[in-house]
């Protein structure tokens, strides 16, 4: 691995991102809007669960943060498909950047975007929705970072499997929806039917929600989120393994649009 080549790819991806900031704006603004819309819905449930002084933001904010991170799993993939569409993929491969340099350089901005999107939502929710984080902010950051890594590792697996950008769009939207809903980020796990509750822990988003709710509601600290974070990193390792096994750099991919 050559850090310089990797950094060159990374910086270039940021330039591309700057030219077309619509995705970034969307994933930052939309969860704010949805959290505002949904906040009241969760107030009653939370109060019934014994969360005194609940505003609803205690669930809506972590929920929308995780959901939109999940909806963004297509983003990393498009960083690859774009190059196939522009004819630059082979040029990158013929350059001195190794496969790993290219991969890390392209996925890192997507991880950064997920991270910023979630952190901005939590920070703005304090003044906007009266969110009070009862636990430790560092624990919240660690959880959010582990989730960003995990989801983007999954995004690379989807990219490896998709042969066309059309397929990637389908995989990412179905995948994002399943991760958000069944993971308990849209509807609290307790409110889901039994079969869904039983299946939920196979999804990384479930663990992220457990960690975040613990920090926001139950005053959780770094030790309390160790379990969920370990689960997220475990998923990350599995996805990384799958990606390493399945990703073919010499496969010609088709970009439409």
């Amino acid at each position, binding site marked *: 691995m050559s850090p*310089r*080549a990797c*950094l*060159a*790819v990374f*910086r*270039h991806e940021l*330039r*591309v991102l700057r*030219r*077309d900031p619509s995705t970034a704006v969307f994933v930052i603004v939309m969860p704010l809007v949805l959290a505002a819309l949904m906040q009241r819905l969760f107030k009653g449930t939370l109060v019934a669960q014994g969360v005194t002084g609940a505003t609803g933001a205690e669930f809506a904010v972590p929920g929308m943060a995780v959901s939109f991170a999940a909806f963004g799993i297509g983003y990393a993939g498009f960083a690859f498909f774009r190059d196939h569409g*522009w*004819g*630059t*993929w*082979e*040029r*990158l*491969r*013929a*350059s*001195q*950047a*190794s496969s790993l340099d290219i991969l890390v350089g392209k996925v890192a901005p997507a991880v950064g975007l997920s991270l910023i999107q979630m952190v901005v939502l939590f920070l703005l929710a304090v003044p906007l929705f009266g969110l009070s984080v009862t636990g430790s902010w560092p624990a919240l950051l660690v959880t959010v970072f582990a989730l960003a890594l995990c989801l983007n590792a999954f995004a690379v697996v989807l990219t490896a499997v998709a042969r066309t950008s059309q397929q990637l769009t389908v995989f990412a939207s179905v995948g994002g929806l399943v991760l958000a809903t069944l993971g308990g980020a849209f509807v609290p796990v307790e409110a889901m039917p039994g079969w869904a509750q039983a299946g939920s822990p196979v999804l990384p988003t479930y663990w992220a929600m457990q960690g975040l709710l613990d920090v926001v509601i139950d005053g959780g600290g770094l030790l309390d989120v160790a379990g969920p974070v370990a689960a997220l990193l475990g998923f990350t390792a599995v996805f990384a393994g799958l990606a390493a096994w399945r990703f073919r750099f*010499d496969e010609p991919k088709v970009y439409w649009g």
Partner: protein
Amino acid sequence: MLRVEGLHKSYGRVVALRGVDLEVSPGEIVSLLGPNGAGKSTLVSIVAGLRRPDAGTVFVGGVDALARPKAARSLIGLAPQDLGIYPIVTVRQNLTLFGELAGLRGRELRTRVQEVAEALLLDDLLDRLAGELSGGQKRRLHTAAALVHRPRLLLLDEATAGADVETRAQLVALVRELAGEGSAVLYSTHYLQEVETLGASVVLIDKGSVLARGAVAELVARHGGSVVELRFDGEAPVITRDRPGRQPERDGNLLRIPTAEPGPEIAAAITAIGAHAARLQSVEVVRANLETAYLAITGRRYEPGEEIERA
């Protein structure tokens, strides 16, 4: 600088290369000629490490490119046949990326970007978005991106397709300059005239095999006799010829007579076609050059119209 031996490559049932040997020394320009589908791009992409051959060896600057692709790639600059640039960033940012990927930075990077932009008439366009350039300008940027780091082995796959006369001349000059500084250049093209100006050696391939190789002058002397071509309205007639030498060839409405003495040959041919003279549309003398050599070797007339222009 480049040594390729016994290269074989198939795509499923399509055999693209069947045992190609090739050598390019430092400072040498080798142009790869051959009709569409001959295997030129396949060869170039294997040398660049983008595809693995089924058999054979590739050495770049003494490095076994199949065993140590990364070391080999550091010596190579590739401009693939299909356009590959980032349309939504500027010309400068495109060139900077490829310079950085090759390990350039700081002042040296900026100087090289400026130099290559000037050499390919892009210096006024450096801060324009690449996607807003004209077709030929995009093509120049595409080639420039392979040159920023002044590679020791330059691979240009139809770099001049779709470029105007000035661009082509500029590019040819730049390639010569690079070769003059010791870079080896492998250059695939459909413009035979360019090959003659480049002073390149030629490797002519068809259907995955090398049919001929050598300096342009050598090939022309060996294979490129003059040809008289008679074009008819409708099928060309069959004639037999009593003069010594090869027999005429019919190719649709074209009658081709290889000859060393075009004048007497035409006179004889006009007599021989008899009443068919009424259908005669044109008579053309194609002088011995790379084109007639190409024709003699491949059995096909070189048709510039056949080439697909990509811009």
